[in-house]
């Protein structure tokens, strides 16, 4: 009996740090609609700063708890600074664009933390007076766990009072419901947002600081917590603090007991929970459906798509000509890099297809890229297939995944849809990762050999040409679809579900097919990638790759058709250039932040506005 009580309490204490981080994220998203990827970095900074402060103040009760509180406040201030310096400049950008800026912030903070605190892990200080264990019916429980269990309800109550008993809290709640109305009523939104960021980041910092006695500070904390924090926020319902609390407890308890029955479930448990919750409650446990017109879209409605004017077409022909001539003028590595760029461009275009014209954001698009990669790799490995047929059939696996996952996903909308795609992608990833006998687990599938005519050990030219032809055709095909009745119907579903329904479009089916088509295109990119690299790994299905694609699309400009291509070229090329430098993450992050501020409509969006008229794009469209 004692064992089970202690296991329940252990789960509750694990929920504490998770709840603190997630509540901050939820508040920030609720008010500002910013998907703040840097939230994990604030958590990490909280741990590091608290560690240094406790060292400074001494390990007495005052030094320890004072250090934790001060660290939280310091992180809150860093969050506010990030908001004022960076995010405030890009609120008018298309939905989700701000997440690119926060991605840049992650990279910058990672390198700064490495520079300041060094590479070695720091093991946290113990809480004075709480180092021992309490005996609960014969089973020991660390005393500090009790402190952690107490912290969450206290913070929860404090937040409830703040939101329900203060003027500022009332305004925050009002902004969560309808921020334009709050602005119209004369509330200074800028400071409201900054205040929200301060509060949210402070909670993340507090989460990082209070877990010190349970662990410590290291450089991987940021990535390790961010996915979990998003899951908690979404399961609880975005913007709901009580929901976040409930979800944190639910997930921590399921984990505490789940590992007793299925020790290997650790990788996937929380994503399974999220998928199940979202399928049955599409707005999370305690969330509420989004009010109409509250999808976070900024600015005037989009202009209809028009075919490219002659000058743009000529520019396109020039690019194709350039690619055809590249093997003659450039060295072998330029071809290697261009193959990478072409593959990622197709991947980004496939994501943009559903994200821009389709209105369905995917945070898990790597599932289909990886699906194509593993489809081809498995054929080579088990069916002794040759390169040509593996490349042709590999995307079938991507199609199957997209059909199955898409059926559930297209029933949702907005960030919930995005998070469900993430959950499915993570489930697919963990299957590939765990199923050693078939997929080779994370040791991957090696020796995915090319056919003799495309052997890159001899020359990269044939494989490069193959990639160029396949990627360009696939991209042109997706573009062509957008100008077909199918594409018009898809955009109609995005712009008005109700009206599309009224004129006889089966909205769900339309979105489902679009989702699948996009998945197949991503799969084509994946099957090319696996041959270009010669091996397949679960990384090709992982969250970072999904976000790379998302960043390419947003950086390039989600509201233009060329955006994903421009974004893929820029991102891949910059990364290749900068990674030679020792502190490359700092500079990559800084470059991304500067690009985001300079081009809030994306690079291609900016290009269209200023160069569009010369290319014959009409003025109202160029805006």
């Amino acid at each position: 009996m004692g064992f089970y009580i202690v296991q329940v309490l252990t789960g509750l204490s694990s929920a504490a740090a998770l709840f603190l981080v997630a509540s901050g994220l939820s508040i920030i998203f609720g008010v500002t609609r910013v998907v703040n990827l840097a939230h994990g970095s604030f958590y990490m900074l909280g741990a590091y700063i608290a560690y240094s402060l406790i060292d400074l103040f001494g390990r007495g009760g005052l030094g320890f708890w004072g250090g934790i509180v001060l660290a939280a406040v310091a992180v809150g201030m860093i969050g506010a600074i990030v908001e004022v310096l960076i995010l405030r400049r890009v609120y008018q950008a298309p939905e989700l664009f701000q997440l690119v800026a926060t991605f840049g912030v992650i990279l910058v903070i990672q390198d700064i933390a490495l520079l300041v605190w060094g590479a070695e892990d720091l093991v946290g200080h113990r809480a004075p007076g709480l180092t021992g264990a309490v005996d609960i019916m014969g089973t020991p429980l660390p005393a500090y766990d009790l402190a952690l269990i107490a912290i969450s309800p206290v913070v929860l109550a404090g937040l409830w009072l703040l939101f329900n008993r203060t003027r500022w809290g009332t305004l925050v709640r009002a902004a969560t419901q309808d921020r334009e109305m709050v602005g119209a009523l004369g509330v200074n939104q800028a400071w409201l947002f900054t205040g929200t960021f301060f509060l949210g980041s402070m909670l993340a910092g507090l989460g990082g600081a209070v877990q010190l006695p349970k662990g410590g500070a290291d450089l991987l904390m940021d990535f390790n917590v961010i996915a979990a924090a998003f899951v908690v926020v979404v399961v609880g319902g975005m913007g709901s603090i009580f929901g976040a609390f409930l979800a944190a407890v639910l997930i921590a308890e399921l984990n505490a007991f789940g590992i007793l029955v299925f020790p290997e479930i650790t990788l996937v448990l929380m994503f399974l929970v999220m998928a199940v919750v979202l399928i049955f409650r599409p707005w999370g446990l305690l969330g509420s459906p989004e009010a109409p017109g509250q999808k976070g879209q900024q600015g005037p409605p989009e202009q209809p798509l028009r075919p490219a004017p002659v000058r743009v077409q000529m520019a396109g022909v020039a690019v194709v000509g350039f690619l055809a001539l590249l093997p003659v003028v450039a060295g072998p590595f330029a071809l290697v890099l261009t193959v990478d760029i072409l593959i990622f461009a197709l991947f980004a275009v496939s994501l943009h297809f559903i994200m821009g014209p389709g209105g369905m954001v995917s945070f898990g698009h790597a599932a289909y890229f990886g699906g194509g990669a593993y489809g081809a790799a498995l054929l080579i490995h088990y069916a002794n297939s040759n390169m040509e047929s593996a490349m042709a059939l590999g995307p079938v696996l991507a199609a199957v995944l997209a059909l199955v996952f898409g059926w559930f996903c297209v029933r949702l909308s907005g960030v919930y849809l995005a998070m469900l795609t993430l959950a499915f992608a993570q489930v697919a990833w963990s299957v590939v990762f765990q199923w050693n006998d078939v997929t080779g687990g994370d040791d991957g599938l090696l020796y995915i050999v090319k056919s003799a005519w495309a052997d890159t050990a001899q020359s990269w030219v044939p494989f490069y040409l193959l990639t160029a032809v396949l990627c360009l055709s696939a991209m042109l095909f997706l573009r062509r679809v957008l100008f077909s009745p199918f594409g018009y119907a898809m955009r109609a579903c995005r712009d008005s579900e109700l009206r599309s329904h009224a004129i006889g479009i089966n909205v769900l089916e339309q979105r489902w097919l679009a989702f699948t088509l996009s998945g197949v295109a991503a799969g084509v990119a994946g099957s090319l990638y696996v041959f270009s690299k010669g091996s397949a790994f679960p990384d090709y299905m992982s969250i970072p790759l999904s976000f790379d694609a998302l960043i390419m699309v947003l950086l390039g400009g989600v509201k233009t058709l060329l955006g994903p291509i421009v974004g893929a070229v820029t991102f891949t090329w910059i990364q290749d250039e900068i990674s030679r430098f020792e502190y490359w993450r700092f500079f990559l992050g800084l470059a991304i932040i500067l690009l985001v501020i300079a081009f809030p409509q994306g690079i291609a969006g900016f290009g269209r506005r200023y160069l569009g008229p010369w290319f014959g794009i009409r003025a109202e469209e160029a805006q």
Partner: protein
Amino acid sequence: MTFTRRAVLAAAAAAIVAIPALGGSVAHAADTIKIGDINSYKRLPAHTIPYKKGVELALKEINAAGGVMGKQLELVSRDDGGKPGEAVKIAEELFAKDKVALISGSLFSHVGLALTAFAGQNKKLYLAAEPLADALVWAKGNRYTFRLRPSTYMQAAMLAEQAAKNPAKRWATIAPNYAYGKDAVAAFKKVLKQKRPDVEFVAEQWPGLFKIDAGAEVQALAKANPDAIYNVTFGGDLAKFVREGKTRGLFKDKLVVGLLTGEPEYIDPLKDEAPEGWLVTGYPWQFIKTPEHKKFLDAYQGAYGEHPRIGSIVGYNTMLAIAAMLEKAGSTETEKMVDAMKGLSFDSPTGPITFREIDHQSTMGAYVGRTAVKDGQGIMVDWTYEDGANYLPPDDEVRKMRPTS
């Protein structure tokens, strides 16, 4: 106005991209032998920065002594970001653009395996320095790939041999939920069962790598009531596991065996909370008194003002191996270098090392001992150096695992 600000911002972004690119292409000495170095310098810097320091120390010494074949060795070092696809791209670039003779390095097993496949398909020499995956030289091995560090199997076998001497019968294991953890548990079980058919494994826990929920995992292990525990967690997971385990009394009166736990990378951060009495593999740098190690230790401390980690010695030995190989091959032609690597023997600070012809695994060994705490630091006591050659499966078994090459 906005356009001007935009232009400034864009120009700043362009400058950031351009500056390192310019800096990178300046240095090219004419008559050097270039070695491509690929490692995860940003993903796991606690391990890879000491590695780099060891590499650079060895290079400096080799070059000061006149280099190899009358040429200086030059390192072209790149960060793979911990991504296998990226590592392969960089390998292409190092051979195509930088004209390196061979590549070496890497820490993560999957990155090492991606480079193994690359080397096999492109017929380029790859010396895997740190990745531990058994498959790298066995199931997935090829003619062009060699590995220096003692593999998962070897280190687990060393521990299993010692563990078999303990009367403990009921064993529990805890390992991170990925290939390295799985391999480490499988190898330990196999060797322990061979020596002690009477042991049983009563619990297995598989926390996510660097995502351990230590309290719950410790409870789950305690519930199985084992006599002994085999731990494969490392890094931040290890710190959490040790702290929870101590507070909750898990380790009391139990034998605990820890793979890699004695390596300075992992035991140093624990300071006075380092576990005591665990049977571990590691690197007791303070206590190795052989003259060749003393020379290395003095040079390292003199150069960097800190003590070496396991990564440092692996990096140092990697460069010694490459220099010895080049000396023997007398050429930078891949096939000649591969032939020279086979059966190559050289002396290192940790003793003589040979690259086995049969599977391209080196016989570099590991230090096996017990942990203790002295002056607020975790150390190793009662340790011995175990030669890797004694902890490899019989030759016919190796031949069966390795594809014909």
